[in-house]
């Protein structure tokens, strides 16, 4: 029996694709996925639909509990990795369990970004990344009739649609960091603003969030440099940043994400990173890039798995539609750190 034990940290598209690729190429190896979410892989783009009540919670999930078991892949959910020794070949979980590995793929994805200037108000903001976040939105929306959205990344536009469909009053504060990390032009930003207005959304374009104050359980005061707003919920949509903080003292090279070469390998043998958590070296531009999008993540997960098994594949990211609103459409596959 094979002594190999491949461990994958994360349970998103990159992680799942990596696990399936490993199993496809090695029928005997032990494969373990460690994910922090309580349930299996979900479809993040459906979260706004879930908030709008257009779909049920079960519709969010891609696979049932038996999917990985049938493929002899151990899926460990609701479990958090807090440390690692990459030379020693083990990771450690929050509950003090040590898991040895012969190969590791880190695919922890990304988490909502809150700009440093407004981090002190983080507890008063709602973000949207997971089904659990969506449930908080649903719970809070049942008590309020108005929402302020700030930032304005790609997810926020779908959320706006959901809120409008629920009959909520929406104020949208778009500042220069909107659509981060995609450097959109002023023209596109204004075009998006006009479309939002056409849907009944009040847009404060070019305004900056200054401070937030809770007035009551269902009321917030949101102060911008343009005007002061009152709403039941403040939604923060400033994009995503790689979810790698827990690896900060493990010896990995980390900037915004985990730095990997064009084969997705980290500085440690048998340790790879894939998906939103990775910053991939591009030999042509001699710099690192990050990607977003479901298909990109899957592709990176597959390449990481193939290379872990001895391959030498390099990443060639397909162009992917990441943003669409009426006739405004932006295609991108990767970009440099801003």
């Amino acid at each position: 029996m094979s002594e190999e034990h491949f461990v994958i940290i994360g349970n998103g598209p990159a992680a799942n694709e990596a696990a399936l690729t490993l199993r496809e190429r090695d029928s005997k190896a032990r494969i373990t996925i460690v994910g922090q979410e309580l349930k299996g892989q979900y479809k993040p783009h459906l979260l706004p639909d879930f908030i709008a009540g257009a779909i049920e919670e079960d519709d969010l999930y891609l696979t049932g509990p038996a999917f990985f078991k049938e493929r002899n892949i151990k899926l460990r959910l609701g479990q958090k990795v807090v440390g690692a020794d990459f030379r020693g070949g083990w990771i450690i979980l929050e509950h003090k369990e040590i898991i040895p590995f012969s190969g590791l793929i880190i695919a922890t994805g990304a988490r909502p970004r809150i700009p440093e200037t407004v981090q002190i108000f983080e507890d008063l903001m709602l973000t949207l990344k997971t089904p659990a976040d969506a449930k908080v939105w649903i719970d809070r929306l049942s008590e309020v009739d108005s929402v302020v959205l700030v930032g304005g990344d790609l997810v926020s536009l779908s959320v706006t649609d959901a809120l409008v469909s629920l009959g909520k009053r929406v104020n949208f504060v778009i500042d220069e960091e909107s659509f981060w990390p995609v450097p959109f032009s002023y023209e596109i930003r204004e075009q998006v603003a006009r479309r939002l207005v056409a849907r009944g959304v009040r847009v404060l374009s070019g305004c900056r969030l200054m401070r937030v104050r809770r007035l009551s359980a269902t009321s917030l005061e949101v102060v911008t440099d343009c005007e002061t707003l009152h709403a039941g919920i403040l939604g923060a949509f400033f994009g995503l940043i790689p979810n790698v903080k827990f690896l900060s003292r493990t010896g990995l090279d980390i900037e915004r994400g985990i730095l990997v070469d064009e084969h997705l390998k980290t500085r440690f043998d048998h340790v790879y990173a894939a998906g939103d958590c990775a910053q991939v070296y591009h030999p042509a531009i001699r710099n690192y890039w990050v990607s977003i999008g479901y298909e990109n993540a899957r592709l990176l997960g597959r390449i990481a798995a193939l290379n872990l098994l001895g391959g030498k594949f390099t990443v060639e990211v397909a162009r992917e539609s990441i943003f669409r609103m009426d006739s405004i459409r932006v295609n991108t596959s990767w970009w440099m750190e801003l």
Partner: protein
Amino acid sequence: MPKVDVTVEVCGMAGDGTIAAGGLINEAMASGGFSVLGFDSYPAEIRGFGRCVARSRIGSEPILALGDQTHVLISLNDEQSGVRVPFLAYNALVFFDSNPPVYLNEKQSVAAAVEPGMTLIGIPFSDLATSASGSARGRNLTALGGFAAVCGAAPELFRNMITKKFKAKGEKVLESNLKSFDAGYYYALSNLSDRMRPLFALPEQSDVAGRLIMSGNEAIGKAALDAGVLLYFGYPITPATPIMEYLAKHLPTRGGAVIQMEDEISSIGAVLGSFYAGTRAMTATSGPGFALMTELITHGVMAEIPAVILNAQRGGPSTGLPTKTEQSDLHAAVFGGPGDSARIVIAPTNVEECYYYTVMGFQLAERYQTPVIVLTDFYLDNRVEDLPVPEASEWEKADGNLYPAADSKGTYKRYAVNESGISPRAIPGAEGFAYTATGLEHTERGTPDYSPENHMLMTEKRYRKIWGALADLPAPVEFSARGSMDLGVIGWGSTFGAILEAVDTARSLGYRVGALKITSIYPYHVQEIKDFMSRCHQVLVPELNYSGQLANVIGHLCGKELIRLNQVTGVPFSPSAILARIERILKAGAL
């Protein structure tokens, strides 16, 4: 109110407070009006190593047996709990210590064993208990606090039971235990809002007055007290020892005594001596001890001296499986010993019956002047159930002895042959009523006589007496729609609860099945059993023994071959195992 049917399991190493935690769950939930059936399994060895598991099935309707799957696992020791994961429901909750004192490898971590669909609930049991009370000893209560918060079990129920349990140990001990519980409760409320699963909506009309929760062994002990027992003679043995402990606590307060004998032979000898002298006494043992008693039990048969012997069966033969359950002493109880030594054997099927059948045992022993064997087993002795406070009637507790008429003084024949086979029994020392109590075959006056005619006469007398006891023995109880059935399931002892649940389920699925509960093992109600069998196209007898011991005893009453379902795994039948067999039989019959 939605129907509640939840199985909770606490698992840990011996010494972790596993059984204590399980006991508190049982008592707390029963005090909330739920029906509870709890059962503990633990290693044969003394404290310090080995897996302990306390299982509780909690329902809003009467619970008849342990459930098939566990819905909530509370791990007090991850390495031990990991092996329990295959027995969990697909969406089970698993509570575990999220900050154990040492690092674990995968094999030692319950988190490594859980499957997707199950929800891990990490609570730093040890840390919280230490912070709250200064010691990690209360971590089992911290775990219960977390369980109560996440599962929506009213915390006051637990606090009341903790108070009841620790009050006698002083204010400091009580306070530290309550703090340990609250630490887990409030931690879960504050930190685990995403994992809440309210499973225990309290029954709307929870009438708990007049109900209590007790184990089979406690019920037997209480029954002995209520029946007026003054002397208990015994030698400790699992799973009967708790009866001795219970009586050791209570008998001295009423002028009685528990005397630990040098072995089981002397124990039964002392019980026979006590009854001979007119004082109710009992002994309790298990298979190996019962084997030692058999010669003197037959002495009681021959000399027609009452005795009550409780045989708490465990896995055998020989020392066997001391802490596992089995129903394999039926042959020994009914037939064990030299000669044709008919005696009464009765077998309760639940905790409430443990009480009433034990009280009945004393009445029957005196009335029929014979050893009466009450046959229980590990699963029945150690499980707890909620039940109405048992209280035997005056009639049930009454002196069952048939004393000689005063005018027979001087002409008294201790073993007078008559129609009933019951001869008046004088208490030794009564002037003019002297007799010889002997294990030798004897005449009506008790003098030895080995003649063919006398041995025939006396053997017939003794059998006539025992079979005459059927008039006082509980008849089989049928659970069916009457009429003819495709399958009848006959059961006895602790197994019957699982049988009844399986049969109830099968009937709800449209199968024409019924169940028959037999508690009078010997003598048995021939006509009633025959009547049931005759209305069943097929008859199934599930038993926790390999040889089908009840089926062997009653099989001749059935005109067809009995179908046997025998299990010797050391664990009780699950209702689903019996249901599966029922369905297989009926589907095969339908082909």
